């Protein structure tokens, strides 16, 4: 039964390559028209934060190289943190990482079929959102102390 389905899928996917253009499947990916229950919110934030992390990769490498290159440059990188603007940026980016991390762990848990009923999934969604904010707050405390 399972195997049959899979075989059909494989054939379909070959056919669908040719047919994809002709077939007009309905598709709604406009986020502003989608109702956002908490699981959907966690999911779309996982996607958004994943993209944000991708965009800042060169910045990350640049900062790492600068911070290693000499004591002066190291001091320069650390001094960046004296600016409120940079601090807030860093907090925002750190939140992006924390959220992507916790939501990613939630994904992995669900992939091994843990916490997959609707009520449990809602609970873990809240936990993911909460942990992301909590981790960011802790970083804020460290930055300002």
């Amino acid at each position, binding site marked *: 039964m*399972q*195997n049959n389905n*899979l075989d059909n*899928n*494989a054939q379909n996917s070959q056919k669908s390559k040719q047919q994809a253009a002709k077939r007009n499947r309905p598709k709604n*990916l406009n986020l502003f028209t989608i109702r956002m229950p908490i699981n959907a919110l966690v999911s779309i934030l996982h*996607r958004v934060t*994943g*993209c944000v*992390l*991708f965009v800042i*990769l*060169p910045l990350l*490498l640049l900062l*790492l*190289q600068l*911070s*290693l*290159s*000499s*004591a002066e440059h*190291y*001091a320069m990188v650390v001094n960046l943190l004296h600016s409120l603007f940079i601090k807030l940026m860093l907090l925002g980016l750190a939140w992006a990482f924390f959220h992507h*991390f916790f939501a*990613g*762990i939630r*994904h*992995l848990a669900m*992939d091994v079929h843990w916490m997959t009923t609707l009520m449990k999934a809602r609970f873990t969604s809240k936990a993911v959102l909460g942990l992301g904010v909590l981790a960011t707050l802790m970083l804020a405390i460290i930055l300002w102390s």
Partner: protein
Amino acid sequence: MVIELLTKRYPGMRAWLMQRLTALVMAIYSVMALGRILLEQPSDYEAWLSFSQPWWWRVASLLFWISLSIHAWLGIRDVFKDYVPNASVRGLLLKLLVVMLWVYLAWATWLFLAYAGSADLVLR
């Protein structure tokens, strides 16, 4: 059946699995990094160097970046599939994505394997 699912006939399953494996590698590295930062609390340049210089840490960092490259490629590719309907525009963006990830990987490899390990960093 599980093995069957990992053959070329089902590329989606491979992508799915790779996304998970790379996520796992990155998660482990992240926890290790956090643990080391809390333990060693590097607070000046010297400490930051000795944090970054152990060979096993640089190898772990490279493994992390290799995972990141694969993970980001699969992830951003999925996003493009959803939000860039025009096939030729999407093809172009995907090529750009691959080039960027290779450049970053080359840069990161050099940073971790050569630069962060070079002894004269300490002497300067």
